[in-house]
């Protein structure tokens, strides 16, 4: 019997180890059914079709190019045939005519046309020629996948704890991941900051992404060991790896027990200064885990994830249901709902934005929502209704750039309140509205928006990216991403000072909030609340008691006086060293 033993390297994103049978998620062509568009959407639909054809063609050309060295001419000519299918003018004319005159979706028009062609082909008596169906299907799958956004086999087939192996996980797959059935994740695509990593981290699942070689298991159920510390994946691991896994697992269990103890503690410094520690969530399935970690409510709920697998935008009632679930399970602890941060790389399948060369600076978040008031209004209505009912809900707005834009948002929110009032769906509860501080321009005028909003939440990932003009996803510049840049610290201080001058709370919800090294600094700079991935909460509670708030403030003052990130990091490390030594001396035996 072939053992299939091998090792594949990638990027470890979560830490920890996972062992289990492989569950390989294969791509397939989804079922397409007839669907109509509005006459006004014809142009957009044709453009969508053009784009799908263009992308599919680009893929095939790239594959053909890669194959030039390895494959013989005749095989390459199959790719030529596939590319010609994408260029077929007759087929194009038939599909676009159906879109224009019957008002059907591009995927239906295309699917129907292809099925008709395949029907003719299947009647052929020649077995070899009938195999052309495979060539046509391969091309069709590519186009349809682009039209729908990549769609895969269902995760519902995952019934026992397994290592999920996939070339690429779409946001739709990610939202379906059952926490108790996935002990590890391995993907071919991906970086430390993409959605797979984000979700793996937030669910605490060991994951290796961006694997450098073929990740397909020898068979479904092949035993796979995921080492997310070192970014290694062992297929059919040997006795040495297994014994090492068991030792690590015992250590991990001890740590987990310790975490459970920490999770139940209060979030206070050594002198009893209390801060709020909340969870960043994007899935309702994470609620249990967040509560076990000791989260006091939700500091950031990313609503776009909740519906990203939906075929179309959720209506008001669907949203009310989802938000109620969240609000009721955390009540009376607060829950901060962030309105859709759509655009950029996060989009609904049925709502793909136009291609943008620079999506980080593009049409996204409140920019998109203000231009699509119906979409915005529906979401606000749902959020207000839940807020009125449970009383623990605040609303957070991402990518606000300044006072004028904020006033437009507040006006819209006020209209929604009036509407609900006239429908008898409101009460006298004040629903706090907050600004996500992530555009540097807004940070600099924090003192002019602070008097007219209820709270700030600083998104350091984007703020740092915009301040330093560094794209963290670009490996060539990622190392220049530096949250400890003196300019960043000064900006953070500016924001906390503006908040406190105007008597509003300020929280931080970026990755920096879960960086233990930064913890005393953030407190010292004046943050009242931290919102982090749930898994980071127990340890934050543990180390919070190693220093007093006065020490943290002094550290903040010192850090602000330094002129380079290197000096700031050295200061933080030295300070922690002193505190650690001190707390070990004090530690009871």
């Amino acid at each position: 019997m072939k053992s299939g033993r091998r090792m594949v390297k990638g990027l470890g994103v979560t830490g920890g180890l996972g062992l289990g049978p492989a569950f390989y998620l294969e791509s397939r062509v989804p079922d397409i059914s007839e669907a109509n568009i509005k006459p006004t959407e014809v142009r957009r639909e044709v453009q969508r079709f053009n784009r799908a054809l263009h992308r599919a063609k680009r893929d095939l050309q790239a594959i053909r190019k890669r194959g030039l060295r390895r494959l013989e001419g005749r095989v390459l000519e199959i790719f030529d045939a596939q590319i010609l299918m994408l260029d077929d003018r007759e087929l194009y004319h038939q599909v676009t005519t159906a879109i224009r005159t019957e008002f059907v979706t591009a995927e239906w028009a295309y699917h129907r046309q292809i099925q008709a062609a395949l029907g003719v082909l299947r009647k052929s008596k020649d077995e070899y020629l009938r195999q052309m169906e495979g060539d046509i299907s391969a091309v069709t799958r590519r186009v349809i996948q682009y039209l729908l956004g990549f769609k895969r086999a269902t995760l519902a087939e995952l019934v026992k704890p397994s290592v999920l192996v996939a070339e690429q996980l779409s946001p739709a797959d990610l939202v379906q991941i059952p926490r108790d059935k996935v002990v590890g994740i391995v993907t071919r695509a991906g970086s430390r900051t993409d959605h797979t990593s984000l979700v793996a981290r937030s669910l605490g699942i060991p994951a290796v992404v961006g694997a450098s070689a073929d990740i397909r298991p020898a068979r479904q159920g092949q035993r796979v060991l995921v080492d997310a510390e070192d970014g290694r994946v062992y297929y059919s691991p040997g006795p040495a790896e297994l014994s090492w896994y068991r030792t690590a697992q015992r250590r991990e269990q001890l740590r987990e027990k310790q975490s459970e103890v920490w999770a139940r503690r209060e979030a206070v410094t050594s002198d009893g200064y209390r801060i709020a520690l909340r969870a960043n969530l994007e899935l309702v399935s994470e609620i249990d885990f967040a509560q076990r970690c000791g989260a006091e409510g939700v500091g950031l709920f990313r609503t776009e994830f909740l519906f990203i697998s939906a075929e179309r935008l959720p209506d008001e009632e669907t949203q009310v249901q989802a938000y109620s679930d969240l609000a009721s399970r955390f009540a009376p602890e607060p829950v901060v709902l962030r309105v859709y941060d759509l655009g950029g790389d996060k989009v609904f399948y049925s709502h793909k934005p136009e291609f943008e060369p620079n999506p980080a600076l593009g049409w996204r978040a409140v920019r998109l929502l203000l231009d699509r008031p119906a979409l915005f209004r529906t979401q606000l209505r749902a959020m207000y209704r839940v807020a009125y009912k449970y009383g623990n809900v605040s609303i957070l707005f991402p990518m606000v750039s300044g006072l004028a834009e904020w006033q437009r948002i507040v006006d819209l929110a006020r209209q929604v309140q009036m509407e609900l009032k006239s429908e008898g769906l409101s009460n006298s509860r004040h629903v706090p509205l907050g600004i996500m501080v992530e555009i540097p321009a807004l940070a600099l005028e924090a003192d002019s928006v602070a008097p007219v909003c209820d709270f700030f939440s600083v998104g350091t990932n984007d703020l740092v990216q915009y301040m330093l003009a560094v794209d963290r996803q670009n490996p060539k510049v990622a190392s220049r991403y530096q949250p400890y840049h003196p300019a960043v610290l000064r900006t953070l201080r500016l924001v906390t000072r503006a908040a406190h001058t105007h008597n509003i709370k300020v929280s931080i919800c970026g990755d920096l909030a879960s960086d233990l090294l930064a913890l005393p600094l953030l407190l010292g700079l004046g943050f009242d609340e931290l919102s982090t991935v749930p898994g980071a909460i127990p340890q934050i509670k543990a180390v919070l008691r190693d220093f007093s708030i006065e020490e943290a403030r002094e550290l903040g003052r010192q850090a602000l006086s330094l002129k380079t990130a290197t000096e700031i990091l050295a200061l933080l490390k030295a300070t922690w060293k002193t505190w650690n030594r001190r707390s070990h001396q004090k530690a009871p035996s």
Partner: protein
Amino acid sequence: MTEDALTSSASKVITISNRLGLHARPAALVVKAASAFESEIFLIKDHTRVNAKSIMGVMMLAAEFGSSLEILAEGPDAEKAVDAMVAVFASNFGEE
């Protein structure tokens, strides 16, 4: 260009002589050859007529080994087009 040239047409009947028939790879060669001409070029098998510049059409013919096809061209370069198409089929597409 004279009206005659615009409306000129030419045709020829050929037999598929490669063993595997007109599958995806040869279909691509046919389409590429046909696309070089201004004339409209059709392939006719039994009662089905397809555009020789559309690979989907050519593939749908499912023209197997030994079947007869009529090549029909209409346009200013109809003669040249038919000659070129005949040559492509006669080459057996580099297959047996």
